[in-house]
């Protein structure tokens, strides 16, 4: 139909790197268990929240970088993917100062 987009990824088999998906799955599983542990082990509220956010971001990064292959995409696509995050943070943080 329409022309194939510019420089479609040279998707010859085997050129896309395939990291150890099962290994990452294992890490995600362990991190989930650690998360639940941290939430109920009875640390102080601040430490718990900080640790949980750190773990969640870690897991999210693993999914984005390896399962969504962001790690192997062109840098401008990576830039595009994180573009809305500053806006999201600005919104929530600015409104939080109001309450």
């Amino acid at each position, binding site marked *: 139909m329409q022309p*194939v*987009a510019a*420089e479609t990824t040279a998707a010859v088999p085997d050129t896309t790197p395939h990291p150890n998906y099962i290994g990452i*799955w294992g890490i995600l599983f362990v991190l*989930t268990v650690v998360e639940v542990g941290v939430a*109920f082990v009875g640390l102080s509220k601040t430490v718990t929240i900080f640790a949980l956010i750190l773990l969640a971001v870690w897991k999210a990064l693993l999914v984005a970088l390896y399962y969504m292959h962001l790690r192997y995409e062109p840098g401008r*696509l990576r830039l*595009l993917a994180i573009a809305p*995050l500053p806006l999201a943070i600005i919104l929530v943080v600015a409104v*939080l100062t109001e309450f």
Partner: protein
Amino acid sequence: MDHTASVALDPRRPMPGMGVYNMKLGMWVFLLSEIMFFTSLIGAYIILRFAHPDAFAEPGEVLNVPLTALNTFILICSSVTMVKAFAAIQQGDQAGLKRWLIATATIGALFVGVQAYEYIQLAGHGFVPAVDAYAAEGRPLYGATFYTMTGFHGAHVTIGVLCLLFVTWRAFRGKYTAQSYGGVEIVGLYWHFVDLVWIILFTIVYLI
């Protein structure tokens, strides 16, 4: 259109652009808007909870954390099967593609099922989104934000399962090859994104 004053030109390709094909770029652009959509729902929850800490329960007080932790694990499993399907078709492994796609759709449907079970359980304990039921204990905000966030995530998973079924059907008709796997890749991107949102939701809603 036949112009006599034609100028000889090398047939050239368009400008380089993003370096990925249109559908993939389109999916990524769409996911950006999804980030903002979930920002509005999750942001509303964070702000309301910050403003009225008393209106929300401590983790595990109302919600069934072990069940949801299991469900989180289920969704993560579906992500790994999805990426396995993608890896299979990139190597031209048709049987592997079908196997992993079916696994992904099944595990995704299982996630929705567990969530439905969780909702029924919670509603049975009187935890509902509307004002009246839980108002006695002064927590109408908790129900409203909880069901809106997890509900819209559940809707996304459901749509994802439907898309996966469509892709599976196409896979059985042999529509994907080692050279042409766009449909598998973009449904995968959507699926992993939904998984990623759940990772954030699980932490913020159930554990903090």
